[in-house]
Structures are given as C-alpha cells and as structure tokens.
C-alpha cells in the first residue's frame, strides 16, 4: 500500500542511490596510492549528506585530490554519479580564486594562441632547466614536466588553406571539433583525421566558432568561463547539426566533457546536441558495421601496438570502438593493456603538489607498457599521451593517426565509391 506513495527515489547526481558497497573506492586510482584521499564514496555521496547540513563540511583539500577520472562511476553498480558529486561540490562550495598557474593551465586556447606564433622560441625555452626551475618554484608546475610543443602553424590555418577548398566535392559531410591540442600542439592528428574521412568519402568542415571544451577550466575552478565557452560550442554545433552534420572529435576528454559534463556540472542544456557528438573512431566503426564504408590497408604496414584505455573512454563505454577498429589493420600486432588511469588527468599531473601521486598512480601502467615492448602505444586522449611518453619513452599515437598511417588511401577511395 505504502509503495504507491513513493514510487521513485530522486536525488541530485543520484547521491542517495549509493548502497555503500564501496566498490568505487576499490577502483579509485587515487585511493590506491594515498591514504590522505578519503575515497570517492566518502568525498562523494557520504560527504554530500553532511555538506547539505553545512558547507563547513566541504573539505577542499581532500576533494582536490580527485582526478575526475570517473572510474568510480564506471564501477558503481547503482548508477551514482560519484565523480559529478565531487566536482559539483567543488564548483558549489569552493571560495578559492584560481592561482595564476591554474588560470594558465586552464586557458589552453588563450595560452596556445599566444605561444603558437613564437613556437620556435617557446618550445626550446620551456625545456630549459632554468625555465623549468622557475616554473616549478614560482608557478608550481612540476619540474619533471615538459609542456607539449607548440606548433608554429595552427591546425585551423593549415585547414583553411590546404583542406577547406576541396571539401565540398564530397557527397557526405561531417563537422570536426579539433580541440586545443590538435590546433596548437599537434596539427598532424587533425590532418590524419581529414585524410581518413576524405578517403571514405566524407568532407570535413570546421565549426563556425570553436572554443576550448573547458575541461581544464572546470578542473581548475573556473566554471563560469567554462559555461560561456560551452554555450558557444553548443551554438556552433547546433548550426552544424542543422545542416545534417555529425560533430566528430579525436579527443575522448573533449567529447566526454561536451556530452556529459556540460549538462551535469555546468548546467548547459545540450540534450539536442549530445547524441550528435561522437568520437571519430566510434563513427567509423559504426559505419563499417552498417556496411556503409570499408577500409583498405597497405600490406607492408607492420607495428606492435599496445592500447591504453583512457579514463573518459571507459566512462563513455567506447573503448571497444577504437580497439576493434585498430584490430582491423592486418599488420597490427595488438596488445590490450589492463584498463587503468595513467595519472595525468589533464592539468592535474602538471601541478607540483600532485606530481608524485600522479606518477604513483601510473606506475603499474608504465611497467606493463615496458614489458609489452610495443612500437607505439595507442590511446584516444592527448594528456595520456604526454604522461606515457614522458614516463616510458614509448611513442603514443591516436588510433586515427595509426589508421591514417596504415591506410591504403587509393584503394580505400576506390572501394568506397
């Protein structure tokens, strides 16, 4: 009789759905390496009950240790958005203003815009020991870290000049959200993406206006700016979707942020856009499954590739799209690494207070990569790439770049006609 009165249990981010099983804490990479972190259950749903009583129970120091890797959410059997609870609490209760360091780390596109024209100078200077000492001592950016090189030519500039004019010749079209990393640091990935899409008969177009997805802004306490940028991205994407485009990316984190964090943490209404944002590997795999496209690979391509599952790929449940796509390459000797966090978590690992923890988290991953001895590691996240390259010396590539390298373009164009 009483059950009719209460048919559902509703709570913000499902914090009350927590059954206290503690599986999340078992899967938390931070809890595994430090007793100082209370763990996702404590910092999340447990802490939330008390924060609702009084904001005095907001423990910023503890919550800041969260990587926002969302592995807790993947592990949760009852759909509690543990990571969201923690990040939302930081947004709601933090009274700290971000430091200069955090503002610089967070503003990836502003810093990129400033650095790109001076890439020839900036890249070597940022690698100099005295410069690193200054960054470490004054800024709090760990001396072990090296910023990814800035490209002297932005991806956008290359695209407008070299690629844009030929895109209209294709019968099918997609939009591309390249993200900061492709634009300022590694345009080659964007070029590889264009190469693959064109080969299977898709024209690529940039969004009318693209802003950094804002993941670093959220992590560094600048939710307002993240919200503004998110709204711009959603506006641009709505236009693209209106023209029948799907919006593709080559970064798992940007994708995850725009699909899920926008709505959960920033309150951006993206329900009409979310389903049309996809990762390039997923899009390609789905087309292949449906028999709409085919890929042909060159016979002389041989590589031993170890795949690392980025945290946000796990959260989206999309790892298998990338791995199955890679396994289609005949010349690939594929090694699946055990899914675990590499420890960098975007800007987290750059901060000197997090460096040791960051490396401890990734340690067993680095060991298993060394043992697998691959020619390269494949992963869908650029910050994982920096971390793994720094910590293992093994080169890391996005699956799209590997596809592009192995692709027999002429044959592919032929069979997709």
């Amino acid at each position, binding site marked *: 009789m009483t059950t009719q009165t209460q048919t559902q249990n509703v709570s913000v981010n499902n914090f009350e759905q927590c059954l206290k099983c503690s599986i999340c804490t078992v899967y938390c990479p931070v809890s595994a390496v430090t007793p100082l972190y209370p763990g996702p259950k*404590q910092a999340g749903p447990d802490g939330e009950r*008390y924060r609702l009583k009084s904001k005095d129970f907001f423990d910023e120091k503890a919550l800041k240790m969260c990587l926002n890797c969302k592995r807790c959410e993947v592990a949760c059997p009852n759909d509690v958005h543990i990571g969201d609870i923690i990040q939302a609490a930081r947004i709601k209760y933090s009274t700290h203003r971000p430091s200069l360091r955090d503002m610089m780390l967070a503003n990836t596109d502003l810093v990129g815009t400033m650095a790109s024209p001076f890439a020839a100078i900036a890249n070597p200077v940022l690698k100099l020991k005295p410069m690193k000492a200054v960054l470490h001592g004054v800024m709090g950016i760990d001396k072990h870290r090296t910023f990814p090189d800035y490209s002297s030519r932005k991806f956008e500039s290359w695209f407008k000049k070299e690629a844009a004019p030929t895109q209209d010749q294709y019968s099918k079209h997609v939009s591309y959200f390249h993200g900061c990393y492709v634009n300022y640091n590694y345009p080659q990935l964007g070029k590889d993406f264009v190469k693959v899409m064109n080969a299977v008969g898709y024209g690529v177009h940039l969004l009318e206006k693209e802003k950094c997805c804002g993941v670093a802004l959220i992590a560094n306490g600048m939710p307002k700016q993240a919200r503004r940028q998110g709204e711009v991205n959603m506006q641009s994407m709505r236009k693209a979707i209106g023209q029948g485009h799907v919006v593709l990316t080559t970064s798992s984190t940007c994708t995850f942020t725009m699909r899920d964090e926008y709505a959960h943490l920033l309150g951006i209404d993206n329900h009409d856009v979310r389903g049309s944002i996809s990762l390039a590997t997923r899009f390609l795999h789905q087309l292949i499954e449906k028999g709409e496209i085919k890929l042909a690979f060159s016979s002389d391509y041989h590589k031993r590739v170890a795949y690392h599952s980025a945290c946000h790929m796990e959260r989206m449940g999309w790892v298998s799209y990338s791995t199955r796509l890679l396994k289609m390459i005949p010349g690939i000797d594929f090694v699946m690494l055990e899914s675990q966090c590499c420890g960098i978590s975007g800007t987290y690992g750059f901060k000197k207070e997090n460096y040791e923890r960051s490396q401890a988290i990734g340690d067993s991953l680095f060991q298993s990569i060394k043992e697998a001895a691959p020619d390269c590691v494949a992963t869908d996240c650029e910050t994982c790439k920096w971390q793994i390259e720094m910590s293992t010396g093994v080169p890391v590539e996005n699956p799209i770049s590997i596809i592009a390298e192995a692709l027999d373009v002429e044959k592919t164009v032929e069979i997709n006609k």
Partner: protein
Amino acid sequence: MEREHNNHYDVIVIGGGITGAGTARDCAMRGLKVLLVERHDYSTGATGRNHGLLHSGARYAVTDHESAVECIAENMTLRKIARHCVEETEGLFITLPEDDLNFQSTFVQKCNEAGIRAEVIDPALARVMEPAVNPELLGAVKVPDASVDPFRLTMANVLDAQLHGAEALVYHEVVDVLIEQNRVVGVKLRNNHNGEERSVYATVTINAAGIWGMLVAQMAGVKINMFPAKGSLLIFGHRVNNMVINRCRKPANADILVPDDAVCVIGTTSDRVPIETCDDMRVTAQEVELLLAEGMKLAPSLGSTRILRAYAGVRPLVASDDDPTGRSISRGIVTLDHEKRDGLAGFITITGGKMMTYRLMAEEVTNLACEKLGVAKQCTTATTPLPGSEPVAKTKKYSFAQKAAQGRHGTLDAGISSGDATSDALVCECEGVSVGEVHYAVNKLHVHNLINLRRRTRVGMGTCQGELCACRAAGVMCDGNAQRTINDLAGFMNERWKGMQPVAWGDNLAEAQLTARIYQRLLGVDRLASERRVEYYET
C-alpha cells in the same frame, strides 16, 4: 546496617531519560548525594524517540498557553547551556491551500502573548529561505524553532551529574520499592546483565521513568493515571530542509518536519496504546502511509526521498489529578508529591511535560526534594553550561570526522585521540565516526554494547544502517570475548532491520539485501550468534 554505609543516598532518581538525567544533574549541583538508575541504556524511552525538535512553543501557543511559555523560556536557555546539542535552524509555520489562513493572525497573536517572536513573512520569501517548502503555501510565519539532539543532551546531563558527585547505573532495573511505615526508603535493583539483586536506600526517591513511571508507582502501591500515546516518525536519508517546517493550524498528525544532523524527520502520529505494548513499539504500514502523505504536503520532495527508518515512541501523558476518568489530559509538567497525595513519604513522581522542558521539570522536582531534605540551595542549571557547551574559542577542525565529532561532543572532543592513522581511521563512514571517537565513547560515555555506541556517536545511524560500520565497531570494541561481540553484532543488525522493515522498498531494500548478504552469507553472523533473542526495547 547497610543503610549506614555507602548505599544510602539523599536521592535516588529512577529513569535514565532526559528527565531523570536532568534531575540527577540538578540534585547533584545542589550538593545532594545522588544515585541515578536506568534499566536499559540512557534515552531509550520517549527521550530518544521523538522529533529532536527544540520547540519555540509556537505549536502550543493557541491551545496551551502555559506550555508555550515554558517552551520559549527553555528554548532560549538550552541554546545557551546546551550549545553543542542544539542547531539553531529556525522554523516556519506554513498555511497551505487546504488550511484556514485566518488562523494565522490568531496564531501570531497567541505567540506574541506567550513571548514567542513570530514574524509573518511573504510566501515568496519563505520559498527562498527554505527551498524545500511546499511552493503552494499561502502564508508563512517564522518562529525560533530549532533542532536538538536528545541523546547528546541526556548524556551531557549525566556527565555533569557525575562531575558533581552523582553515581549512575545503567542496566539496573528497579524490581521493588522498599517501604517502611508509609515511607519509601529505597529500591531493590536487579543488574540486568547478570541478574544480581541488591537494595539501595535514600531519603527521597524520585520516579522519573516516563510512561514506565506508572509501573514504578504501582510497585510503591500508588496509582497514577497515565495514557500511553504512541507517536510514529520517519527518518529520511538526508536533509531536504534546513529549517523546521510546521503546519499553521491546530496540532495534528504528521505536521512537523525537523532537520536533525544529516537527516530529517517527519512526525508524528498519535494513538492510545496499552502499557503492555510500550516495550516493543512497531510502526504500521498505515502509519507510514499517513506520515508520508502528510509529510509531502510540507515538503513535496519527501515523496521521492529515500526513507531510512520508521520508529515510534510513547508519550507519558498524565490525567489531571482530580479527574479519575482521565478525560482532561495535560501535556504540561506534573509533579506528584506522594506524601501529600497518597500519604506515602519519601516518594515523588515527575512526569508529563516534554523532552525540551526537562530542565524545568528537573528544577521543580529538585526544589521539592530539597524542601523534604531541608536543603536550601538555589537551582543553577539554567545558567551553567553543560559539559561540551562551555564557552571556549572553537578550535579549527579539518577532517570530516573531526568536524562531525566536534558537532557531537562539543568541547569534549578534546578527549578524542587523533592525529595517528589508527585513531583517525573511520569506523562509520556515513556519519564520520573515527576509531578514536569509538574509544572515547567506550571509555567515557557508558558504552556496553553497539546500540549504546550508536546513541553516543551515531555509528550505524547513517545511510548504510550498519552495513559497513557495525562489524568495524564490533572489532574495535571487542575486549577478547568474541562470542559476546558476535551476539552483540547480531542483536545490533536485527535492531537496525527492525526500523528499516516498515519502509523496506527501493534503495533502502537494496541496502538491506546487501547488508543481509554481508552479515549472513559472508560473515555467518546469524549462525555464529548464540543468542538470537533481541531486546527490542533496546532499539
């Protein structure tokens, strides 16, 4: 002979509820030699089974001026002397479309007459002040309601009584009242742990046993007309409201929603029950439905908020003394001098009243006891802070557990060891109870079993209802007697289930199933326990 020695007291206080504890404190502070006896644990009766509401008195303003005046005075006193037990939430009296808005002006006028600051506010403002409130409200009045933790309050009174020389015995039940020549000279006690009996003597015996005071009086051969009134309540998984929400109408069922610590509580019902049932109250499905349906009128989100438990208490209502029919029941304080009333000297009953007027009740009965003992000392309980509420600069606490413990023990938290990995390890994750706090409670707060520990620290009172914390707490408390610990654990888990059972659906049921898996299938506690019997009264 015996009487000449250690076991003669000025006063024996029967009952370890808030009234007994407060009376023991007052008597001890006036220099009397006091023995407090309780058959189970402190605050097991009505004291631990109410809303935890520090009434402003507004609820009684229209129907019972005297109670309203007492409430507001005690409200202001407890904010000062029991700072660490009180949370100054403030309260709202809301008028819903189905209520008569005209009642509001009478209400405000009567509040003012009783000295209660009642301020009519715009419904729109009320929605901002308390976002959980029913948005359809037509009117709102702000009053100085607050929430109070009765477990802490009782314990603080016991501790202070002891600091002033009182002795206190838990698990000691009065099995006979000793009478010589129309005078109560003491009581016979049974130790409920080992069954041993002994007599203790006093010049004055005070019966402060709540509804069970009726049975104590019976042992003394006097009759008190009491009417056990069952009140059921529901505990929700988290706070939906941060202010007390009441209905602005004559007091009725389920019209108060109180934020208590990390939860909120809706209540109550009111039904006459036979005295025999008072040791094992069960909440019925009809009561749950009524509480939920009425509660949703105060705060609609209760309809989709997880319910942790249902529980019930018994109000010790007393018939006016001149009325043997029992028709005129008072909720006011009743002090019975049995010497005058029944010709039985050395025996006083203090009953009626409310948890929050306990101090005033204690003052009244202590005045009478002092008069009988020829002691002329003034009451100082209204101005002396309770242990834990002393006005010292708050030390800054950092961790969740440290903050939670400070909330529970006030300045006494200094006695909790911390700073090393073992002490800081959490026993109860939902409520932030550390190993250090468990040790403190065991050593200082009369903890004999897990249920005692729960009342002192909130272990097992959170979302998981003992799933994670009970076995950890049992491990910390185990003194080498594993069988006793396992029995204790089994009893505790059964007691937790008792409160969950009436509301076992949805996530709460899933939680209970997981708990059952862990304790039965994984740990085999049900098979290892040698006693399955659970003293439900202990709940």
